[in-house]
Structures are given as structure tokens and as C-alpha cells.
């Protein structure tokens, strides 16, 4: 039993391909409360999108499946064992999702209004067609699209990228879901639109008591949007905590590296941006020790032997790294943006 809105324990998701089994998420646990915003940060391919999609068992046409022993409690209902009917109730009403590329996430042959109203009318059969369209217009207004009545009749390719993303947001909140998952909502947009969309999401946060999960690789937007941050790498969580804890006193070398690679005023002078060497490990192979070991500057033999335990640093802050161990040499986090 848990008092959290969402409680995820040892979530593991794998893909079966004819070349073998790819273990994209390897045992992830976290929780989320109403009104709170959690950011999941990591390089692309670290399993963050797979994690959030697994919350709604959204596999699309891929051959993904949730491993045994995973548990996802949403309002104390176990999602992993939900059948089709329960799932369709959860999606839209329980959890809404905003996708990354607005250009391809809307059906080109259906009007924008229809694609919004469709969700409303499915979840609440009593709503008539006109009411649903009226509701859709209100939503469009809510997400800041001018003259919504006319826009409803238009088709996706008649709208700009930013506006389409707003439509996606409207769809996600159409049935006032409790959790809104934003899967890299701004990546496909240019900077100015990005700011508008973020500002819109922040407004939504204040106005509604919804919980948000922001999945991104762009640390720049995380600080002013999320409450808690989790750093994921190769299917596992390396460090998590409130945004202040993570930005001010990061404990994991990977988090240091991530923070260093954010272009800030100081680094501009040096001209070169810091980037982490190497590439993430092949998820098809079993990884014995810490997945980041091969690319970690402070790597020790023990790192490659065994996976470090999760060490709590404060009520909300914890890290999985051998540097925390008593026998490990004490290392100070490099100054933000400084060269190692």
C-alpha cells in the first residue's frame, strides 16, 4: 500500500528482437505525489522514455514487455496486471502524455478538434458531439491558441510546430488526467517557442493540482520546471534528489559531467564545450558493475565488479556510487563548468 499517487518498484522493461533481448530498463523505483513535478534526465537511449511509456503500458507496435517482478501502483491499482479495459480507462483519464515531435504526432487526415474531442467522448459517453467540440475549443483557449472555434475545423498541417505542441497539450489534459507525462516536449521546437510552451506548462502546474513527469536530456529547462530530478543511465537511476540538492551538491561523477556539459557564461570564454567521452553501453549485454564505469574518470576496479548500493544523503537525496564508500578516496565535485 502506498500513500503516493504513483509508486514504481523495481520496474524492468526489455525488447525481444531476433538478435536477442535488449534490457532497456533494469530495475527502477521511484514515486510521485499529486501536484509534484519529477524530471527524469539522461542521455538519449538511457531508457527514460521507455520508463514513462511503461507507466501506461504504451508499447505501440514494438516488441517491448515488462519483466516479472515489476510493480507500478497508480492510486493503489497495479498497472502491470491491468487488462485492456482498465488500461483504456487509465490512459487519458489517469495519465496523459505529450509526445516529442508535434509534426508527426497528430493524425494528418483528422481535424484538430476531432482529435481532442475524441478522447473526451470516449471517456465520458454522456458528452454529446457539440459539447465535446465546445470543450475542445475551451481547451485550445486554455493552451493559448487564438480563435479556437475556427482552429478546431483546421487540420494539423495548417498549424505551426508550436501550435501543434499546444494541441498535444490540450489532448493530454482533455480528460483532466492526474499525471501528465511530457516526453521531451520542447526538443523538436526552436528556442522561442520552447520558452512559450514551458511557460504554458508552468501555468498549468499552478492552476491545476496535476503531477507532471518531465523527461528530457536538456538540463537547461529542468531547473525552472521540476521539483525533483532523477538522473538515469543505461536503464538504472544513478542519483536523485530535489533540484537544489542536485544542482548545488551533486554526488555522482555522471551528474557532474551532465552539469558541466550545460553551456554557461564561463565556458563560453574557453570556447570548447565539455563532453563525456565514449558512448553508453550496449543494452543487450549484461552489465556487471556500475554501467557508467567505462566512461567514469574516477573509475575504480570495484566499480566494474559490483553495482554500488543506493546511499541516502538526505531525506530526498540519494546516489549509487562507490565514491560514497568509506574505503573510496574522497573526491570533491569539480566547480560547475570547470575543466577536470
Amino acid at each position, binding site marked *: 500500500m502506498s500513500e503516493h499517487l504513483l509508486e514504481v518498484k523495481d520496474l524492468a522493461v526489455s525488447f525481444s528482437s531476433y538478435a536477442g533481448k535488449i534490457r532497456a530498463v533494469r530495475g527502477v523505483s521511484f514515486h510521485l505525489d499529486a501536484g509534484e513535478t519529477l524530471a527524469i534526465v539522461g542521455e538519449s537511449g538511457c531508457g527514460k522514455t521507455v520508463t514513462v511509456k511503461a507507466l*501506461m503500458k*504504451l508499447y*505501440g*507496435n514494438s516488441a517491448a514487455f515488462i519483466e516479472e517482478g515489476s510493480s507500478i501502483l497508480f492510486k493503489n491499482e497495479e498497472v502491470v496486471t491491468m487488462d*485492456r479495459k482498465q*488500461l*483504456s*480507462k*487509465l*490512459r*487519458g*483519464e489517469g495519465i*496523459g*502524455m505529450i*509526445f516529442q*515531435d508535434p509534426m*508527426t*504526432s*497528430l*493524425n*494528418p*487526415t*483528422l481535424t484538430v478538434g476531432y*482529435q481532442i474531442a*475524441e*478522447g473526451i467522448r*470516449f*471517456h465520458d459517453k454522456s458528452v454529446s458531439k457539440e459539447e465535446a467540440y465546445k470543450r475542445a475549443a475551451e481547451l485550445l483557449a486554455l493552451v493559448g491558441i487564438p480563435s479556437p472555434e475556427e482552429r478546431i475545423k483546421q*487540420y494539423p*498541417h*495548417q498549424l505551426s510546430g508550436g501550435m501543434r505542441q499546444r494541441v*498535444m497539450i490540450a*489532448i*493530454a489534459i*482533455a480528460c483532466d488526467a492526474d499525471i501528465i507525462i511530457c516526453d521531451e516536449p520542447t526538443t523538436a521546437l526552436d528556442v522561442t517557442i520552447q520558452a512559450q510552451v514551458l511557460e504554458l506548462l508552468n501555468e498549468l502546474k499552478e492552476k491545476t493540482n496535476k503531477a507532471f513527469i518531465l523527461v528530457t536530456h536538456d538540463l537547461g529547462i529542468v531547473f525552472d520546471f521540476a521539483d525533483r530530478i532523477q538522473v538515469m543511465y543505461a536503464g538504472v537511476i544513478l542519483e536523485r534528489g530535489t533540484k537544489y540538492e542536485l544542482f548545488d551538491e551533486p554526488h555522482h561523477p555522471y551528474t557532474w559531467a551532465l552539469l558541466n556539459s550545460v553551456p554557461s557564461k564561463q565556458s563560453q570564454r574557453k570556447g570548447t564545450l565539455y563532453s563525456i567521452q565514449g558512448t553508453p553501453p550496449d543494452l543487450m549485454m549484461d552489465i556487471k558493475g556500475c554501467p557508467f564505469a567505462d566512461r567514469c574518470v574516477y573509475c575504480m576496479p570495484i566499480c566494474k565488479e559490483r553495482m554500488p548500493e543506493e546511499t541516502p544523503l538526505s531525506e530526498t537525496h540519494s546516489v549509487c556510487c562507490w565514491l560514497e564508500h568509506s574505503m573510496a578516496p574522497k573526491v570533491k565535485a569539480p566547480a560547475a563548468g570547470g575543466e577536470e
Partner: protein
Amino acid sequence: MARYIIKRILYMFLVLFIVVSTTFIMIHSIPGDPLTATVENLPEATRLNYYARYGLDKPLMVQLFRFWKLFLTEGSLGESLKYPGRMAEEFIVKYAPISFQLGIWGLVIGVSLGMMLGINAALHKNKLPDYFGTFVALLGTCIPAFVLAALVQYFFTVKHKWFPTAGWGGAIYFVLPVLCMTLSPVATYCRYMKSTVLDVINQDYILTAESKGLPRGLIIWRHVLRNTLMPIVTMLAPSVAGLLGGSFIIESMFAIPGLGTYFVKAINSRDYTMVVAMNFLFTATYVFSLLVVDLLYLVIDPRVRLEAKQNRRAVASNVPNEN
């Protein structure tokens, strides 16, 4: 939009005129005189008036002109050579509906069954429905029509005597020929449907639809189908046009008074009028169904429709460029 349709109809008649005239010239330039068998041992006098009766004694271009004049004034396509006394359009009016009836039934059942199998095969890739779909496609295209007709006829009328072997009358004569005619559309449309559905199913907007909690059936019906209609509709035009010609083999196997037999015999016996009339019928329906398909493009795909509108506004003066 109306201007666009009118322009297309004009094009239709132009294409019809060109094709029928070319066929007229082609069939007349093939050596071999169709009237030999009937007039071989007639005296010179009667032989000449026999040719005159069909206007064959005039130069080719004059004959072509007379053909179109006859058609435009009296709407007649000329008298058949092989069946004296019967005008070509009589055959079309009497028998095309029968062939069409059979064909439409076969196509409707075939296409709907094929699309269902195709969707299933796409949704369950490399599992049973997929292999079943491929098997049906294989069956449909590799079994020649006459083998299928022979098997169906033997099984249903000789072994079990459930149906009359041949002849034409009430609905009961419909069953076996239609059964034989459904196999090939099922095969074709199953394969094409699978291919297009596979393309659409991986699109992002399907994931969005799923994230709204819509059941799979609704997603297939509302989202997937709409986007797969484009190629499927394109294929409907030629198959619909082919129906009027009837299927020579099925109609001769089941003794059905359709156009199929006339279609093939005409060319074999160089029955000029019938060949031209048959081609006229085929081209007219084919070109008409193409127009319908192009209009359907506009209905199905809003992008095409909007582009047609925008271009017209942008290019005010000349012809709207549909695509």
C-alpha cells in the same frame, strides 16, 4: 472545385475519343477478313453488298468518321459482324449488367475480406494471421481461374449436387461464380492492405491515439484505415472497370450470359464492331472510375484538398493544378 471537375470530364471524353479511335484503327489494320467464312462461296454481287452493309468497302478514315457520326447521332455502335442483325450496344445493354452484377459481388466480398485479413496480418506480424494472409495471397494469385472454377464446380455440383452446374436464372446461379471471383481480390487486397497498414501503424499519431486510451478497434477504424485508403482506392478503379468485361473463363465454365465470352470471341473472329464497342465500354468505365478515384483523393486526404484550393487562389489565371 466545380471547374476542376468539369475540366476532368472534358479530359475524360478526350481520352475516350483517342483510345477508341486508336483501337478502331488497330483492329482494322490486323490482316484477316472476318467475313470470309460467311461470304466465301457467294457470287461477286452479293459479296460486295455484304461488305457495303458494314461499310467495310470505304477507306479506314471514312469508316472511323462514320462510326463516330453514327454514335453521336443515334448512340449506336454499329452492327456486329459475327451476329448479323444485332447492334453492338444491344449486347452491352443486355449482358454488361449480368457480368457487372457478378463482378461487383465478387469484388465487394473479396475486397472486404482481403482488407480484414490484411489488417490482421499487419497487426500480428510474423504470427499466425500473417502467415495465413500470405497463404491466401499465394493461393489467390497462383491458382488459375479455370482450375478454381473446375474444382468448385466438381465439388459443389457433382460430388454434392448442392448447386446447378451451369445456367442462369435466380440467385442460386450466383453463388459458385461469385465464390470463384472472390479469391483473387482477397489475395490482392490482403497483401496491399498489410503493406500499407504496416507503414501507418508505426506512425507517431497512432501512439498518440493509444495514449488517449482508445480501444484498438476504434484506432484501426478511425486512424489507421483513413491513412491506408489512398493506395487501396487507387487500385479499385482498374478492378471496377474490369468487371464489365466479365471473366471469360468463369462465364464460359458456368454458362453465364455475360460479356466475357463476347469480349474474347470478338477479337478472335475479328468482329470489328464488337471489339470497338467492348473497348468503348471498358474505357468509358475505366476513365470514369479514375475520375471518381481522383475525387476520392480529395475526400480522403485533406492535404491534397487544401493544396488544390490554395493553388487555385495563388495561380488565379490558369487551370488549377490538382494532383
